[in-house]
């Protein structure tokens, strides 16, 4: 049994303009200690997926199941959900400034969270908070534990958020664009820190990002989302060396790299569709260079396409596209690992 299994998840919101389907028919699973990267652009549904796992999409109508250790989080009574959320599944957000309360000391906020889930005394929890700040690399943690969030730099605030998330040794860490708001040298520090703590705590990680560079760095498996649906899922090597879905290929091709310097980039034409009024058939069809009749009439389901490049991959390479399968076992640029 996987640690986390998302089955046929659907999340929709009622808006003035109609029902907005943020996530549709999404399924994936996560094994203990593994890292899943979820990639997509704004509006692809990646953040809503994370928030739903955490039980943070209030007012949305939900379909499907989110099974954590076999229990469906979507139907769990509040009292039991509270024991899971924060303690066993923790989350770090993109913006560390608005995730910390400006009025309370950083250490107090971590201690409060620890006390809510354990029987520690105020003093013990405070000491634990300082330990945790030291763990994530805050200098002079016993002094900084009594600082307010504004006295921390952006990178330090994100470290404090990570300390809070890891305070109860969760089984799963959900990170929603944790480095997007940070400078590149700080970003490198945070990614290294998350990777190191993940190995040490044996935490499973869901890394939500728009940055394929971050995915290439840390993910075991990758799920690509477009307009609320998973369009391709595979291991990291195949994603970069043998992508199947035209959207995935377009994403990779539109990144500037040293190889194409001075040449024109190859953007994906057009814009993502409205989630209230999706095009018929495949949602990516209007922007796709390979679209043909069938794409308009029939929506392609996720199906195996072959081309997994590493034998250790837990996930089968699946893609929601009518294009023919990749040649089995022969990715174009197989890595020599």
């Amino acid at each position: 049994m996987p640690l986390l299994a998302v089955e046929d998840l659907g999340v929709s919101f009622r808006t003035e303009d109609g029902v907005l389907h943020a996530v549709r028919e999404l399924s994936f699973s996560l094994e203990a200690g593994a890292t899943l990267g979820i990639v997509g652009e704004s509006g692809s549904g990646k953040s809503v997926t994370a928030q739903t796992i955490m039980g943070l999409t209030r007012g949305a109508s939900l379909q499907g199941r989110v099974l954590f250790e076999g229990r469906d989080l979507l139907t769990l009574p509040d009292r039991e959900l509270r024991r899971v959320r924060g303690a066993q599944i923790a989350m770090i957000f993109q913006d560390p400034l608005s995730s910390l309360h400006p009025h309370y000391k950083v250490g107090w906020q971590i201690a409060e969270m620890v006390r809510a889930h354990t029987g520690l005394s105020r003093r013990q929890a405070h000491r634990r908070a300082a330990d945790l700040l030291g763990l994530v690399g805050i200098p002079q943690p016993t002094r900084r534990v009594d600082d307010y969030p504004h006295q921390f730099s952006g990178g330090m605030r994100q470290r404090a958020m990570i300390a809070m998330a890891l305070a109860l040794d969760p089984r799963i860490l959900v990170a929603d664009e944790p480095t997007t708001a940070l400078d590149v040298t700080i970003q490198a520090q945070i990614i290294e820190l998350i990777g190191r703590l993940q190995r040490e705590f044996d935490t499973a990680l869901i890394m939500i990002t728009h940055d394929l560079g971050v995915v290439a760095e840390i993910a075991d498996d990758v799920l690509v989302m477009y307009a609320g649906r998973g369009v391709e899922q595979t291991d990291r090597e195949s994603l970069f060396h043998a992508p199947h879905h035209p959207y995935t290929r377009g994403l990779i091709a539109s990144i500037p790299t040293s190889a194409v310097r001075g040449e024109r980039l190859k953007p994906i034409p057009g814009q993502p569709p409205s989630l209230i009024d999706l095009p018929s058939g495949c949602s990516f069809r209007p922007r796709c260079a390979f679209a043909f009749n069938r794409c308009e009439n029939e929506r392609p389901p996720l199906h195996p396409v072959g081309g997994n490049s590493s034998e250790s991959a837990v996930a089968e390479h699946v893609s929601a596209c009518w294009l023919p399968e990749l040649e089995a076992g022969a990715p174009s640029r197989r890595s020599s690992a």
Partner: protein
Amino acid sequence: MSPRATAVEGVTSPRGAHSTSDDAFVRVEHAVKRFAIHGNQLFRRSKEAVHAVDDVSFTIRRGETLGLVGESGCGKSTLARLVTGLQPVTSGTVVFDGQEITRLSRAQLRAVRRDVQMIFQDPYGSLNPRRRVGSIIGDPYAIHDESRGDERKRKVQELMEVVGLNPEHYNRFPAEFSGGQRQRIGIARALALKPKLLVCDEPVSALDVSIQAQIINLLADLQHDFGLTYLFIAHDLSVVRQVSTRVAVMYLGKIVELADADELYERPRHPYTAALLSAAPIPDPDPARRRQRIVLRGDVPSPVSPPSGCRFHTRCPKARQDCVTVVPDLDAVTGSSAAHVAACLHPVVDGEDLGAAAAVIDQSDQAEIPALEAIEKITAGIARSVDDQGSRA
């Protein structure tokens, strides 16, 4: 002011219009910008100041794209504002197209500003949501009092076509456009007066990757078609390499390295540049193609009281005693061409492993990830307290 053609296509090529002997279109010399911090003014004026830009000199050549990279707070946006004359320098000079703009009156400056336009990072915040797109793009004509009525509308629609917007959307509001399209609106507005220099301040940072590439291609086309010179500011190093002829790297108010784009990326000489380049995540899982990552310790120090000597010495893996006291000049580096300058006393040499370098000065106030034993100790403690509660299976 040189006579201007009326049609958008008629923008005069800057190369033809002027025949100065040197090709420096913008020359910045010893520019300094300080912002006073207003403390408790009732009793005394605060003498503290943010040293946003400190003694910076460089040129932007006619027709090139000069990339400017650095992390938040390094002064790159302030530097852009000094070049555009949006903010006066504290000291130093900015010469724009042969004319020193640092001592011009407001009226004189207004004339210069026709030739310098700016594109901003936030395509949402830089457009008034209550005004129609046509009138937003036509603003520069209103401000400089040219072409009214139907003529203005015709020009605006031409501009919309040039940047890839549908001219029929003239009467729509910004909210009806996507992020990428809004950035196109900002670009159309910037082009209205046929500027010579376009300052792009993080123009694609707020956009999705696939849209980002559309805007980068558009900017390249416009530069080619209208002979524009770009100052291109971004924190995304791969974007900067893609668009730039030369690249300048800033750290805490100073340019620490400047070179041709390929040269800078292939052979960085300043340890900060090397660390910055190595820190950027590369979208390729093959470890063989990855650089050795140099993870810098700690955060950028405060620009209110920047470190002595070389400002990077508190985080530099190669820092030595002289770095604390000597301010390095931006000079040519041995082993590189004369056009490659870096401000470092101990520049990186070819094939050097910076990851293995260790500073010989004390940098202990910087954050560091603790040793594994410490992590294990804390992990065990956490597991115990959670087990005590029995909340863990």
